[in-house]
């Protein structure tokens, strides 16, 4: 009896994945999304959001805002946006006004090189505003406050196509990201590309490999029981291949983030996405 049940469970998982494969994702958009969850690039490869690799149940949690377990952060973020903090007594709204307007494409553009030539992720930029404009303390990278603010800001771009700059001042950072993406690391001696480019769409034990796209971050992950940043995800994958992780906010994680964003160029921002 036990064996029979296990057999059924395995079949159920495989069947859901097979169904997900059969759908033409290049045609699928979610409510309010400008662009579909997948598209065919110039080389004929279909660039697919992680959404398209997940089970129907996980997809349903993301597709319905009332079911999405991270959506409360958008409401909390809206409050935090307008709440003064720090010695200057200013809130984000005092400088940036209505986030729906001022942040409408911000989430599609980061990581980004600023006027001083530094490569900044959204978290870095938020902390710059806090320390340099507001006289407030920097948020810790993976803190509740930071996750809520990054979810709120990136959510303003939900449905719009990711479009990071990789030429000009960003070119050297992009090249570094590409190098790290393809470099074997750790005792298992694998690169990101081995799993997410060479074998996406296959099971690796119980995990169904996606293209490792970043358009949904910060993402609610059932395994984490909360949202996490793209740096957390990158660190998790490095840990799994028994490699030393780079610190939160490090240059290495940020150039990888830039490379990932461009790999998924044109995919819709999904923040906060839901994954398993």
């Amino acid at each position, binding site marked *: 009896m036990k*064996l029979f049940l*296990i057999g059924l*469970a*395995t079949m159920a998982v495989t069947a859901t994945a097979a169904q997900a494969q059969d759908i033409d994702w290049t045609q699928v958009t979610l409510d309010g999304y400008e662009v579909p969850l997948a598209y065919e690039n110039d080389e004929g490869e279909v660039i697919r959001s992680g959404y398209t690799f997940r089970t129907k149940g996980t997809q349903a949690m993301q597709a319905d805002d009332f079911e999405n377990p991270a959506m409360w952060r958008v409401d909390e973020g809206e409050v935090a946006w307008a709440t003064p903090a720090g010695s200057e007594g200013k809130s984000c709204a005092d400088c940036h006004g209505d986030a729906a307007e001022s942040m409408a494409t911000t989430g599609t553009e980061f990581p980004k090189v600023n006027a001083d030539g530094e490569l900044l992720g959204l978290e870095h930029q938020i902390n710059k505003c806090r320390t340099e404009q507001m006289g407030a303390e920097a948020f810790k990278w993976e803190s509740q406050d930071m996750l809520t603010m990054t979810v709120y800001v990136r959510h303003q771009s939900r449905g719009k196509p990711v479009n990071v700059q990789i030429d000009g001042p960003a070119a050297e950072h992009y090249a570094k990201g590409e190098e790290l993406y393809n*470099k*074997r*690391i*750790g*005792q*298992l*001696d*694998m690169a990101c590309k*081995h*799993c997410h480019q*060479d*074998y996406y769409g*296959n*099971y*690796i*034990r*119980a995990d169904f*490999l996606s293209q490792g796209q970043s358009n949904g971050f910060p993402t609610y992950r059932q395994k984490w029981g909360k949202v996490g940043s793209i740096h957390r995800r990158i660190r998790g994958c490095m*840990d799994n291949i*028994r*490699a*030393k992780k780079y610190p939160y906010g490090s240059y290495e994680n940020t150039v990888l983030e830039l490379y990932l964003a461009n790999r998924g160029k044109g995919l819709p921002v999904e923040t906060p996405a839901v994954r398993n």
Partner: protein
Amino acid sequence: MKTLITALVVVASFTVSAWAQDMAYVVNEDDFTIEESLTGTPGDAAAGEKSFVGRKKGNCLACHAVDQLKNSQQFHGEVGPDLSDIGSVYNAAELRLRIVNYKVLNEDVIMPAFYKSTGFSRTKSDFEGKSILSAQEVEDVIAYLLTLKS
């Protein structure tokens, strides 16, 4: 007495050099084999099955499916070829090379080298200087694979 001492010295120096060259083995590049056992001790197929399945050991099942394990193991990988009949395809020497370091055959392969302890980049400190499997575990996995015939 004299012969005994000589024998002892030989044994001792053999052990020392085996340590120093930890991962010593000879690859035959003509037919892609490692002929000689890594330990001289025959592999134990039952122990090999445990290493094959164990997530902290070979975790081979992460990438390879095996029909003979369908009843006992729920999740089988799809990344590498099905190994249900691998015991009819390769002999021990051929399997040994593939497990020790598949990159000799295919430099871009995803499959890890299971008997290699140096030359990696940024290995986590708990695993620094260690191979994924010990020499005997490799021999055990080979013995297990040789039982797989469908």
